[in-house]
């Protein structure tokens, strides 16, 4: 009754031919290249691997062949191409699209007490009637926001300085909650504020209403105060006190900080990072300023070449890794977003690096005057009298009209890097995004010209740098990167992370 056993040859092993599945590749160095498929599975291999693979000169009996097959770069007669598996992985990578627009930014006022050099939009004005969102506009905006098919929506209050319109916020919040409950939506609320005008009453209100705070901290005093002039030149001191006060009232995890990199910042990555560590932040986002609005106009003061930013970024990243190895928890947000795309099967919810681009698809901005923009950058352009990306107005246009209008459609046409010249064949396409608003602003064309695109240059360099880290095969680095991705403490990732730099 006993059954026979058959040799491995009965199950394949050295097929005579194979078929390719879609993939792209890029040289990382003289010795190595990276192959990436449509769902972000990658292989760092010797130079020439992609050539051998495509020219069918690969040894089908080799380990490399099995690896390429398991990662779905090819298939052969020994097993099915498993396209359903690939499809599921693709769907997972694009799951940020599920539900459509999630982030809804309300510009409740343009007024601000600061006069930052790089700010695109703010007004030093006491004229409430001119620069505040009216209640009627807020109501129309909420109605449009709740038309989003998304089950989970985020309402973000921006400005200007939104706390200068705190009374309006207090009118909007209960109405938003009521509408969300009626529509069966989960609602998150965030307020982006410099905190300078935050009273204890306001902070207690945010605590009671479960509203998160995102504030600005550009680094130590000499950088922060230089970047963010205000009467009294005390922005830094106010920010530090107010972060502490906000944490005391709301809880540490409810208060996040964002930094903007200016020309002055570029020489001080270590000092900026130390400031974040000193204040017990677990994350820092090394962000370049966007080339819009006042930032474009005042380039002589704050603008800089992308190379200088990349030098700053890499020094910063290296310093953070050194701190991590000493057991200090700090993650760099931009790297974490890209690493999540490379190292995990999941997608990210970050709207500024996705394909289709986030503008409109994932974000809508409701300006104080009722105009609806595809993104924060789009409304900044509008303040520069370029209204290309104004999708409509809450008083005049329906949700349907906004998303079927010419403005949105022309934006959408340039929103998929799968189809953009220079992106379609790029190995990093699954990890990158499209940014038609940026390319319109800098190159006068939503499609853009990749060889001269700062967006492309920045992301190519950063992704290459990250592949350099991944490719080291350094267990400590791997643990650190996954600690970031998983929001875990470095110290909970196992015993072997070294304790000296």
């Amino acid at each position, binding site marked *: 009754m006993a*059954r026979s*056993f058959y040799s*491995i040859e*009965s199950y394949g092993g050295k097929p005579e031919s194979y078929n390719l599945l879609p993939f792209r590749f890029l040289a990382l160095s003289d010795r190595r290249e990276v192959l990436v498929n449509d769902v972000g599975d990658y292989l760092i291999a010797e130079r020439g691997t992609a050539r051998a693979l495509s020219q069918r000169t690969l040894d089908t009996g080799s380990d490399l062949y099995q*690896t390429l097959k*398991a990662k779905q770069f090819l298939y052969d007669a020994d097993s099915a191409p498993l396209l359903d*598996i690939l499809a599921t992985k693709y769907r997972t990578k694009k799951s940020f699209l599920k539900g459509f627009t999630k982030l809804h930014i309300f510009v409740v006022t343009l007024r601000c007490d600061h006069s930052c050099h790089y700010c695109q939009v703010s007004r030093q004005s006491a004229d409430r009637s001119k620069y505040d969102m009216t209640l009627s506009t807020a109501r129309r905006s909420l109605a449009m926001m709740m038309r989003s098919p998304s089950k989970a929506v985020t309402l973000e209050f921006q400005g200007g300085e939104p706390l200068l319109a705190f009374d309006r916020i207090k009118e909007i919040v209960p109405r938003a909650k009521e509408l969300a409950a009626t529509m069966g939506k989960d609602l998150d609320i965030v307020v982006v504020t410099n905190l300078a005008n935050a009273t204890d009453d306001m902070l207690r209100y945010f605590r009671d209403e479960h509203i998160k705070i995102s504030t600005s901290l550009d680094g130590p005093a000499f950088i922060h105060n230089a970047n963010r002039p205000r009467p009294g030149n005390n922005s830094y001191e106010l920010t530090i006190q107010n972060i502490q006060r906000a944490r005391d009232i709301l809880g540490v995890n409810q208060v996040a900080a964002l930094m903007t990199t200016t020309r002055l910042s570029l020489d001080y990555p270590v000092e900026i990072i130390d400031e974040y560590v000193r204040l017990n932040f677990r994350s820092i986002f090394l962000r370049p300023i966007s080339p819009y609005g006042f930032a474009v106009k005042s380039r002589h003061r704050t603008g800089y070449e992308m190379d200088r930013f990349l030098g700053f970024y890499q020094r910063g990243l290296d310093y953070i890794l050194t701190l991590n190895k000493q057991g200090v928890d700090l993650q760099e947000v931009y790297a974490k977003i890209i690493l999540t795309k490379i190292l*995990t*099967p999941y997608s990210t919810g970050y709207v500024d690096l996705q394909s289709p681009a986030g503008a409109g698809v994932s974000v809508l901005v409701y300006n104080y005057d009722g105009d609806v923009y595809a993104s924060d950058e789009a409304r900044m352009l509008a303040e520069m009298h370029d209204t290309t990306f104004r999708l409509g107005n809450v008083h005049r246009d329906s949700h349907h009209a906004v998303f079927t209008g010419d403005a949105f459609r022309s934006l959408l046409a340039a929103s998929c890097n799968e189809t953009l010249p220079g992106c379609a064949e790029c190995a990093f396409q699954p990890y990158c995004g499209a940014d038609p608003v940026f390319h319109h602003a800098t190159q006068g064309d939503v499609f853009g010209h990749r060889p001269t695109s700062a967006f492309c240059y920045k992301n190519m360099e950063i992704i290459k740098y990250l592949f350099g880290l991944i490719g080291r095969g350094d267990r400590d680095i791997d643990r650190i990167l996954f600690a970031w991705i998983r929001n875990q403490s470095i110290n909970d990732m196992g015993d072997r992370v070294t304790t000296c730099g």
Partner: protein
Amino acid sequence: MNFGAAVVGKVATRAVPDDDRSDKILVGLLDERSTDESRGFRGVITTSRAQDNAAMIDTLALPIVHSVREVDHFRDGDIVVMQPKSGFVRTLHRPDSPHNSLFMTERCNSNCLMCSQPPKDKDDAEQFTDINLELIRLMPSTVNFLTITGGEPTLLRNRLFRILRALRETLPNTDVHMLTNGRLFAWPTFTRDFVDAIHPRLVLGIPLYSDSSTSHDYIVQAKQAFDQTVVGLHQLARHNVPVEIRVVLHRLSIPRLPQLAEYIYRNFPFVVHVALMGLEPTGYTPRNKEILWIDPVEYQDKLEDAVEILATRGMNVSIYNSQLCLLRPSLWKFARKSISDWKNIYLQECQECKVLEQCGGLFQSAEKMHSPHIRAFHDRTSA
């Protein structure tokens, strides 16, 4: 034998009130009992000889297995089955054991080189299903954990679904683990029917031995098995069925173990657990020792890499069936005492080991087939 169908009942070795006998099997000497004391049971298992008690047996008219050599291992509350024809008595359930199972069939559509329970091509589904349904009815509701095993349980199809529904009704709070090769779940209709019948606390244990289809198919001795299991895993995920992936460690699965770990994370990040399991030297394994055996001390690098890949990515990973003296210390915290009590042994050299309490020991069948590197730790700190 005086009965034609299997009799399943609870062991009663002591006197039982009249009205509480109908689901019980009387175990013990007949000679010392009166007819009244023995009436109304579901069956009788006795060391007494039939010819010495012929009149009483006639009067009782119960299924009886007689002239049994010894009955001392039966305890009150055990659930046993009396087999017709052969007269075998098999224990199905012990209330005090953490390792109870429902054995579903001896048939299998794979034929793994290292199978510990080699399949038999006979039609036993109906017989086992009847026994298991009765077993489920009799089991105390306090049973914490049950394994559904075989053979390949999914081959039973509708009968499996009946078993699952019975479990769901009778033992909804019991943790149920079903061992299956997962191949049939590649068919969406099968998966849907399965999900209709599913038990609320069921986890499936599904083996995947390589990220290479050739390697996996060879190990399980079935063409297309890799494709079917991989698609099946995704079908199950679609229905949110919790799944554990089980990898048996041997000379054929070790070479690509780190690649398999990465493959599992990229393709099945939803699995609730990954078990990396030492070889059980029983069933087919001794026969295929030449192609399967690798001393665990030789695969520590690969094992450590695989565990690191899974743990770093937040996957829940364990090592089963390994002895601590063979495991790299960094892996100790992943080792579990996984071997069922009734087949778990320690060697002579283990007796003086200071970490014996923490160690999962060996399979009984490993007494003759184990690493020569097994040794005692003489103090805890050397470990």
